[in-house]
Each structure stands twice: as structure tokens, then as C-alpha cells.
């Protein structure tokens, strides 16, 4: 019985946000809201690998690119539902994009999970760059010229669809992390040798984390493709992976609520700083963004919420965690 509450809540919240967006926000802020939903998928899924499973991946933009381009190619040639039912196409595209990049996650995961810490970060970084260079050279996906004319509008339904995905990702990852699999991820993060001696197949656990996280990254890519109606390899550079890692680390590694907070801050900070430009006449946004990042790392290394979740923060549900 209790299992449906989660889904009802996701639908309610997605509908609430979409109503709010349609009524009060101008299209620019609706676009930012869409980017927030997309970043929620990216950050929570990366948190599964970096935060809960202790493996450090710097190639999340590569998975997003695979999902974006696969679903874009499908949506250009194959529209099952037409007319008013058109909105139903997008979940299909998102799932196709997600599965394609989950497959990529499997093939990247198997070899690279023998590596540890910095080396895994480097291999995933290399993977992300290779994807971008391959996309640049593939003329069938438009190469440097990019891919245009993708379906998708920024209306109520697509906003609802994006936030439904965001809510679903948070719900599913929340449940995953609070299950026996979640404990397996955390044990691999804490001490993989001890975990192995307790009967945990650490390689399978790490690959599972990689595959699930790249599925949601692929879905985020598909949402991104249909939110901006065009794709270009320039959007999936190394800086994009770094942005997602920053959201996870700022929010707090190993805390889904932290990632949500990280997403909202990192997406809104550059936009909120835009008006500053009229006073200083030079564009200080990115300088301030990188300064905030450095100061955060020095003052609060464990991130805003550390590894605490929202229920641990509330006084009446204080879980005895010291």
C-alpha cells in the first residue's frame, strides 16, 4: 500500500511546479526550470556513483551525450503518437536514450572498475572526450554543424514530463539507496575489501551503480535534446561533467537532498548574477562562480548537507546519527 504514496507525491509536485511555471514564470525562467529538472537527473544519478558508491566519475557528460543523440535520432524519424497525444512520444525517447547510455555505462563500467580513485576519474574523463570527438566527426548526426528541428515544446506538458522524470529519479534512487543494494553501495564506498569478505560482489555492485546512473544521465540527455530542440557536441564538453560533479560535491556527497540543493544553486547562481553585469559592465559571473566553488571546498569540504538527508535534519525525526 505504502509504495504508491511516493508516485502520487511525484505527480502532485510535478503538476504543481508546471502550473506555477505556466502561470507566473516568463519563458526564460521556464527554460531555467527545465534545466533544473534535467540537472536533477544528472546530479542525483552521478551522486549514486560518486557519493554512494565511492567511485569517482568525470565522464557524465559523455553518457548524457549518448542519450541525447540516440533519442534525437529516433525522434527525428519515428513519431508513434501524433497530434494532441504527441507528449506520449517523449517518455519513449527518454527511455530509449537512457537504455542506450546504460549500455554504454555497462561497457565503460566493466573494464574501468578495476581502477581506483584518480585513475577511474581519468578514464571516465577520457571516455567523455572520445564521445565528443566521435560526435564531431559523425556527419550522420550533423557533426560540428549540429542537429536541428527536434520536436518538443516548452509548454505545460513538457514541463510536467521533465519534472515527472526528475521526481521519479529522486524517488527511485532514494528507495534504491535505502534498500539492501544501497547498503551494498555504501559498504563498497567505505571499504571494498571488507565488503568483499562479507559476501558483497563489489564488481557487480559498482557496475550496477554505473549502469543505473548512466541510464538516468541518458534520460536527462533526451530531455535536454527536446527542451532545446537542437543538439551540438559543444554542449557536452568536459566543463559540463565538471558542472555536474560540482553540483554533487557542493550539495554533499552521499546525500540526495544535498544534490537537489546543489542543482538549484549551481543552475541559478550564473543566471541570478546576470543583472550584476549592468553595474560592473564586465562579465564577472564565471569568475564569481569559480571563486564560490573554491571557497566552498575550503570552508565546507563535506558540502552543504554533508551526507545527511532531509529527514535527518528535521528535529523530530532525528536519527541518532552522532
Amino acid at each position, binding site marked *: 500500500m505504502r509504495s504508491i504514496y*511516493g508516485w502520487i507525491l511525484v505527480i502532485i509536485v510535478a503538476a504543481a511546479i508546471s502550473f506555477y511555471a505556466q502561470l507566473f514564470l516568463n519563458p526564460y525562467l521556464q527554460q531555467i526550470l527545465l534545466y533544473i529538472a534535467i540537472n536533477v537527473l544528472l546530479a542525483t544519478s552521478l551522486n549514486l556513483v560518486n557519493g554512494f558508491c565511492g567511485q569517482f566519475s568525470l565522464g557524465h557528460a559523455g553518457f548524457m551525450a549518448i542519450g541525447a543523440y540516440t533519442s534525437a535520432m529516433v525522434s527525428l524519424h519515428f513519431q508513434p503518437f501524433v497530434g494532441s497525444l504527441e507528449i506520449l512520444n517523449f517518455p519513449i525517447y527518454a527511455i530509449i536514450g537512457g537504455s542506450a547510455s546504460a549500455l554504454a555505462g555497462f561497457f565503460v563500467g566493466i573494464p574501468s572498475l578495476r581502477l581506483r580513485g584518480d585513475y577511474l576519474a581519468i578514464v571516465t574523463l577520457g571516455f567523455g572526450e572520445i564521445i565528443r570527438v566521435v560526435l564531431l566527426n559523425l556527419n550522420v548526426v550533423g557533426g560540428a554543424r549540429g542537429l536541428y528541428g527536434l520536436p518538443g515544446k516548452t509548454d505545460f506538458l513538457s514541463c510536467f514530463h521533465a519534472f515527472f522524470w526528475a521526481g521519479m529519479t529522486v524517488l527511485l534512487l532514494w*528507495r534504491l539507496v535505502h534498500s539492501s543494494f544501497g547498503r551494498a553501495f555504501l*559498504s563498497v564506498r567505505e571499504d571494498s575489501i571488507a*565488503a568483499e569478505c562479507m559476501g558483497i560482489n563489489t564488481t557487480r555492485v559498482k557496475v550496477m551503480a554505473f549502469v543505473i546512473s548512466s541510464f538516468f544521465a541518458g534520460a536527462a540527455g533526451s530531455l535536454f535534446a527536446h527542451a532545446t530542440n537542437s543538439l551540438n557536441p559543444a554542449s557536452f564538453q568536459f566543463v559540463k561533467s565538471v558542472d555536474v560533479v560540482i553540483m554533487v560535491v557542493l550539495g554533499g556527497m552521499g546525500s540526495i537532498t544535498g544534490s537537489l540543493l546543489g542543482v538549484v544553486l549551481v543552475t541559478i547562481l550564473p543566471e541570478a548574477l546576470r543583472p550584476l553585469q549592468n553595474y560592473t559592465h564586465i562579465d564577472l559571473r564565471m569568475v564569481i562562480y569559480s571563486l564560490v566553488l573554491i571557497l566552498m571546498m575550503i570552508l565546507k569540504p563535506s558540502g552543504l548537507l554533508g551526507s545527511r538527508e532531509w529527514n535527518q535534519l528535521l528535529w523530530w525525526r532525528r536519527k541518532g*546519527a552522532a
Partner: protein
Amino acid sequence: MLLKLENVSIQFGGLKVIESMNTSIAQGELVGLIGPNGAGKTTAFNLISGIYSPTQGEIILEGRSLKGLKAFEVARQGVIRTFQNIRLFSTLSVLDNILVSMHQRCDYGLASVFLKLPKFFRAEKKFQEEAIKLLKLFKLDHLKDHEAGSLPYGVQRKIEIVRALAGKPKLLLLDEPAAGMNHSETDELMNLIERIRKEFNLAILLIEHDMKLVMGISHRLIVLDHGEIIAQGTPSEIQNNPKVIEAYLGVEETA
């Protein structure tokens, strides 16, 4: 015969750390593994638990060879260990530490996790109850929500044993459980080990330097020196075995 080691040996580079070890452990038997520092006791543990694979020889558990099995497959066969320097999952709660070892028996898949099917709730409840029962046995259930890393040393040692027990082992490997404990704690630990051996019908292989504890509860002793077994037998036989004394205390200088 639960576990049999047939001339097992291992060498790192040129260094022969374990030299053709031949021994066996029966069901429900408590065997002490003693020897001076650097004799290869912990390496023997690592061999049995599958972290290292032997360069020669065979390890057989209940007739099945463990050759080529990874550490987690060995653990799933029922050989679970504790560590010389505590390797608990320090930022997790005590309860979660115990539940981790039960993951190998987790029968629900991702679907039931994502949709929270009844199977998920039933299994979780069963695990929780099992874990709390184990903790009650060790009188640690009041600490179940505390962070494992922030608890006192002696308590962490016990939690590591409970975590090993949660994996339903047939053979429990204890690596210096009483290290750093005072007399009263050691005695209490002795009774506890004896109790769990009987209650869970376990075979236990115990590495320990505290002779009072080892001699007290071991049925049989294996003495290891420079990677070779120099003596096997009951505690009383071992106490006055000349080779053992020589290994520990060294030979008097003949004039």
C-alpha cells in the same frame, strides 16, 4: 572434515611466506592459530578467505575446492572473517554494518526495490529482526543507530564479530579479537566466543596472542613459525613442546 588445507603455500616475489601448510578443521571445532609475529598467521587467513590465492596446494571446504574463487564467493560458501585492524564501515550505523553481510541472502530484485513490493518489506523486516537478535546476544542493540566509527575500540571489535555472524558462516575466522582488551573484557569475550560456537554450531579459527584466552577455549592448536607448521595438537601438548618454546623464547646459549 569441514576445511582441509593440502600443502598450501604462497610466495610474494622470491619470499616464501607460507610453506606447504597441511591441516584441517572439523565441524564445530575451535582451533587456535598461534605463532610469533610475522609467522604468516594473517597471510594464512587471507589465503583461506580468498583474498590471496595460493601458489601451490589446495584449500577444500566440505569437499569442494576453493581454488579460483574470489573473496566474496568464498564468503558466500560460509567462510567469514574479521580483521586484525578493525575494518568496519565507519560512517554507517551499527545496524547497517550488520545488514551489509545479509546482502548476500537478499532475495528481492531491483523491481521490488523501485516499486516497494511487499516482498521488499518482508525481507527488510526479516533482516532487521535477525540483526537486532544478534545485537541483543552481544548486548549492543541499544547502539544500533550509532555511527560505527565513533564507538569505543572494544565495542567496535564486538560489532565486527556480530557482522561476521550475520553472514551465517560455517567457519568463522577471528583475527586477534582480544587485541587491546583488558582482562575482564577478554574473559567476557571468551565466554561469548564459546557461546556462539555452541549456539550457531560454528567451526572457529582463532588467531590470538593472549595465551590465557587461546589455551582456555581452543580444542586444538596450530603453531606457525616462518610460514611452517611446527606443531599441532591439544593445548596441553603444545605447552611443553620443545620446538614451540624454542620458536617463542629462543634457545638458551649453550656455554
